[in-house]
């Protein structure tokens, strides 16, 4: 702060944060502003809230018209999400109901005349999503930061053409190339493999991350590395010790964007996977129970699906909010 305002010692700008010093009028204005923000946030969050409510609804509540806002919460949706069940015949139902060793989940299923026969494939699919999106995010950011550094600092022959070529990867709607990629993946044996999706998502994200990170690295003054170079460090050491810590904000932002893309990706995951590598997005909406769509189960799946991205974004929020390099270098 001092560096950008003044170099005089003891010169500090102290904006008081004491509430009792602030006049009544600004305080009301602040309250109104906060209120408006809360209302807008609420409107934005309605679908998410509705999803969260549906996840805890029983089946009649979930499909009732008009929709119920107050209801008896149940975790039926989650139980059905995580289990595979079979419909019981009437005979079976009679004997089964008499058993006393039934646990909570079994009883929920029994209420629908069903018996739990094992785990659903939701957890393995969520695991696939985790593996594929985290590995592809790691590689697209790692390659991205290296490429961005080179583009930012070195005289690369044909730099502008290369950068445009990289950007052009994002110009075609992805759906257009799903069929060719599907055929290629079949031939190459990449169909329904983790590696296949990781490769695809990494290359999709790379163009984006190179451009985003180049912007951030351009902002880091060259003098930083030059100081490290004359102080006895190699180029690579200077990169690791000086450039990377300065680029943390950009890396965090890029990570979140890349993660969200590969985590949410639907079309390719649907086309290129079947069992082994199927991710969560294409499987959540197709949860059909006997006699209809299990809305509660779908909502529960979507809710569970939100959590990892929320955690990552929350963990990186400090870097996302913090401005780039404040302080040490003064632009005159």
């Amino acid at each position, binding site marked *: 702060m001092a560096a950008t305002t003044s170099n005089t010692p003891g010169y500090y700008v102290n904006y008081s944060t004491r509430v009792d010093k602030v006049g009544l009028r600004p305080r009301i204005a602040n309250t109104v502003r906060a209120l408006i923000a809360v209302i807008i946030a609420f409107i934005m969050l309605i679908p998410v809230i509705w999803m969260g409510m549906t996840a805890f609804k029983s089946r009649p509540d979930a499909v009732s018209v008009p929709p119920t806002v107050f209801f008896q919460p149940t975790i039926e949706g989650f139980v059905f999400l995580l289990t595979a069940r079979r419909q019981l015949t009437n005979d079976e139902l009679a004997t089964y109901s008499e058993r006393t060793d039934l646990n909570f989940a079994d009883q929920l299923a029994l209420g629908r005349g069903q018996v739990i026969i094992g785990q659903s494939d939701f957890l393995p699919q969520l695991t696939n999503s985790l593996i594929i999106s985290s590995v592809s995010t790691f590689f697209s950011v790692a390659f991205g930061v290296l490429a961005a550094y080179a583009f930012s600092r070195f005289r690369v022959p044909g730099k502008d053409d290369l950068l445009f070529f990289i950007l052009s990867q994002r110009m075609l709607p992805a759906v257009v190339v799903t069929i060719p990629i599907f055929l290629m993946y079949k031939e190459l044996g990449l169909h329904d493999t983790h590696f296949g999706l990781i490769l695809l998502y990494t290359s999709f994200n790379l163009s984006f991350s190179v451009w985003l990170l180049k912007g951030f690295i351009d902002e880091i003054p060259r003098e930083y590395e030059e100081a490290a170079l004359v102080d006895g460090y190699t180029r690579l050491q200077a990169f690791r010790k000086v450039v990377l810590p300065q680029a943390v904000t950009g890396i965090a932002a890029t990570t979140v964007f890349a993660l969200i893309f590969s985590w949410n990706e639907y079309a390719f995951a649907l086309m290129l996977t079947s069992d082994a590598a199927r991710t969560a997005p294409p499987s959540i909406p197709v949860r059909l129970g006997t006699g209809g769509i299990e809305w509660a189960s779908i909502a529960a799946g979507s809710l569970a699906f939100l959590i990892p991205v929320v955690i990552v974004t929350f963990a990186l929020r400090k870097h996302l909010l913090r401005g780039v390099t404040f302080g040490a270098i003064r632009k*005159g």
Partner: protein
Amino acid sequence: MATIELKQVEKKFADSFAVQPLDLTIHDGEFIVLLGPSGCGKTTTLRMISGLEAVTTGNIYLDGRDVTWAHPSDRDIAFVFQFFALYSHMSARQNIAFPLQAQRESRDQIARKVAEVAKMLKIEHLLDQKPGSLSGGDQQRVALARALVRRPAAFLMDEPLGALDAEFRESMRAEIKQLHIRQEATTVYVTHDQIEAMAMGDRIVIMSKAVVQQVGTPADVYHNPANLFVARFIGSPGMNLIEGKYVDGRVTLPGGSAFTLPNEYNAALSAALNDSDGKIILGFRPEAVRMNGDGDISARVYADDLHGGYTMLHFELDDGVIVHGRAGRDANYPIGTQLKFGIDPAMVRFFHPVSERAIFANGAGV
């Protein structure tokens, strides 16, 4: 410590010269200032010495060792940047220790050396702060400490005071000079501020348009500028330069005033001026102006600035040329006064109007 030698060092960007072939020997323990307007090639020269910029041709020697193509980290030099280049994610202490860590010194040794240099620069109380919370002067002190801590063979400083406020600049100037005297370290210092150069340099290298104009001590470049550029650039205001016509030992100034030269100049001047049709440029510092009333040059007082210790008078000659003269602090010449002034002949310098070079390399040549 070290000597630095540049032999025919040049730098081209695309087709234009950033630095024309340059020869320079910087002696052990010397404080050399590279001075010139922006874009004159002084910073490029400094960066070539550091290795941050590759030379186009020529050789650079550090203590006799050819380092032309050595990596910056192999040159044992320290660089102080204009905008400090402190790492904002590290505390002042970590910043200062950073070069030592590259040399894999032990923890104890690093701690000892950091404490030592912090004491020298009086920044011990700031060591645990991040650069962002320090004032500009303190940031530059930390940057100096980072350069000093390694005890390098030479210091290269690129306008280290340029980013500081005026009040800090002067005290830091003295601090850097004092550090240099204590360390006896070879220092190359780049600045565009001629006052800074005069105050700090053992020798000054004046550059303009990629060419070295003059190399000399501050007194030398002030009193005996090698050409018109140096004459104008050094001093504030710069040297007075008026064009006259030289005929038989007399210089006639525009407007008719005449100025008689001592006899001993004549032979050399006539020889030097035979291709300029007798035209000559007289140069003299404001303090060469004599106001005792019996001068030959008539002028009108145009403006006067009281500088406290002295008065700077601005005269308008008959043809509109403005000349600056220094007078005592109690000088009283109302604006518009017509007067005559003289010039101390020993302090007059002569320049060729076409080549713009000084006619006598060593002052007046007497």
